[in-house]
């Protein structure tokens, strides 16, 4: 049977509709779900969308950012208060995709997609799911299970200290290509020593992950070649990179420390 679109004024109403119909899927920007339909994914026959204006709101106050799940990558790039995040938003697709793809959709994008979410992991973002605050890493762990049909209202995070956020997407194709490895880092320093570090990887597992061993190894060290050596030595700890059309697991593991080192040492 044909597909149908059902639009609801609020996310809550959309959520109820989704819960009531197993063959319904939520549509944000459409870049994932409409592709699935075009390619003959028969597991769903209904798109559910919400026209809730709150979903496309961005609020940055008192060092706290809250981004509606329906905000597009282009919307992030346009927001002056989120300038540090522009490289991560620009890492997603080409210009047309960025005008459509949303923050909420990116959370569900399977590896090797989902570059923006890598940034959210490094920012230790929290998701608003039906009023509950869910850490982004918890969400990712349960993405195909308990959160498979979750509706994310917004993501929020503390703004990182000036100059502490770093982001790199390594791709075969420029300026737009799938990721070999994506790295986001929030590294704070005082008096020449690293005081805190949150490191996130894309494409080093089947979903974005944190790199706790690296984070530990950076604390107290200088951000120099020698200072980060111990961290690079444990760069691949806890990773299980995929082999896909872009790169093999072997290659991803081999170059991860190289790219991590370059990112950490970049000015």
């Amino acid at each position: 049977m044909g597909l149908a679109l059902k639009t609801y004024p609020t996310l809550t109403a959309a959520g109820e509709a989704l819960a009531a119909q197993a063959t319904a899927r939520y549509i944000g920007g459409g870049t994932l779900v409409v592709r699935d339909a075009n390619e003959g994914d028969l597991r769903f026959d209904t798109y559910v969308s919400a026209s809730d204006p709150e979903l496309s709101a961005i609020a940055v106050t008192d060092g706290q950012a809250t981004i509606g799940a329906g905000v597009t990558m282009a919307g992030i790039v346009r927001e002056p208060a989120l300038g540090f995040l522009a490289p991560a938003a620009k890492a997603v697709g080409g210009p047309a995709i960025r005008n459509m793809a949303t923050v909420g959709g990116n959370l569900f994008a399977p590896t090797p997609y989902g570059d923006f979410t890598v940034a959210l992991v490094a920012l230790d973002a929290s998701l608003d799911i039906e009023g509950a605050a869910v850490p982004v890493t918890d969400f990712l762990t349960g993405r195909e299970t308990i959160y498979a049909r979750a509706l994310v209202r917004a993501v929020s995070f503390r703004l990182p200290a000036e100059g502490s956020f770093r982001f790199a997407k390594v791709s075969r194709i420029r300026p737009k290509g799938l990721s070999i490895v994506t790295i986001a880092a929030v590294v704070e320093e005082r008096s020449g020593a690293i005081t805190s570090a949150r490191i996130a990887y894309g494409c080093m597992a089947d979903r974005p992950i944190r790199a706790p061993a690296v984070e530990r190894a950076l604390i107290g060290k200088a951000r120099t070649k020698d200072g980060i050596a111990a961290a690079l030595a444990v760069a691949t700890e806890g990773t299980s990179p995929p082999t896909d059309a872009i790169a093999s697991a072997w290659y991803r593991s081999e170059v991860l420390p190289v790219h991590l080192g370059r990112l950490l040492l970049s000015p």
Partner: protein
Amino acid sequence: MAMKHGRGVAAVNYPTGMNLGGDPTQALVHSTPTGNFMVTLSSVDLGQGMKQIMAQICAETIGVPTERVIVDTADTDTGPHCMGTFASRGTHRAGNAVIAAAKEARQVMLEVAAEELEVNASDLDTDGAGNIHVRGAPQRSISIFDTALAAHFKRGRSISGRGMFLIPRSYPDTETGAMKPSTCYAHACTVAEVEVDDETGEVNVLTVKNVFEIGRALNPKMVEQQLVGGSWMGISHALYETTEPYYPSREHGGRDFNEYLMPGPGDLAETEVIVLERPAADGPYGAKGPGEMCANPQIPAIANAIFDAVGVRVDTLPITPERILRALKAKAAQESAEAVAH
């Protein structure tokens, strides 16, 4: 990290037309009552510009401006037989057929003009702008428009021609392989400069300088289109493309333009194209087929440049960062083993 520079060269040739011949193409040309010319074919334009080139060939042969020629092609009800567009045969085979048809049509056109001007057809020439005149006496002239009108309504003549081009099929000798695969060859030499990241195996192609010998550039801007696009595809083949990245494993084949890798607009090498023309004896106005040849020399030139840069050979296409990195690691392991042995 170190970015290592290198450069490499390669030289190639390429046959024009179907291997071993036996691949006919036919063409028909006729005039409308007002002196436009229709070329009828069944050859296919893949985007390389076959329609435009056939119009220019017909126009040159008849002696009219290209705008006076209309090409109607690829309808099997109307177009005479063509083997198809492949094997760098379109321009060469169809071009020759169009020349033959246009020559026959031109002869009728001159005969009609001769009757109108009361001279011998052999004394007439065209000016390329739409007129026929007596050679050496340009004031004694008639327009092609009037000639066509006269042919249709007064003289009862059909200004038309049939063209056919066939290189007879060659059969290879079973023991020696003696055969005639092709009648003319295009040529190329490419020098590529690369930089290779010796920690990641990534390659940037900095420049490619391509020299192509193609017989005759029938339309230089369209030749440039083919050669520049082909040069890009050569780079793409060298470093990026395969449907099965882990061949012979059938896993992980690309399903879309994100997974099937080709260089993007941010990956372009500075590309220089230089064209030489040594007309082919049997080519239409000397032309050979450049469309396939132009994508070949970049591949080995880049492979050789990578060796020049980092001292490793990757003899399997595509030359991916992974293959280079594996070769670099193998080389390093071998060198350190040798150092220990000494």
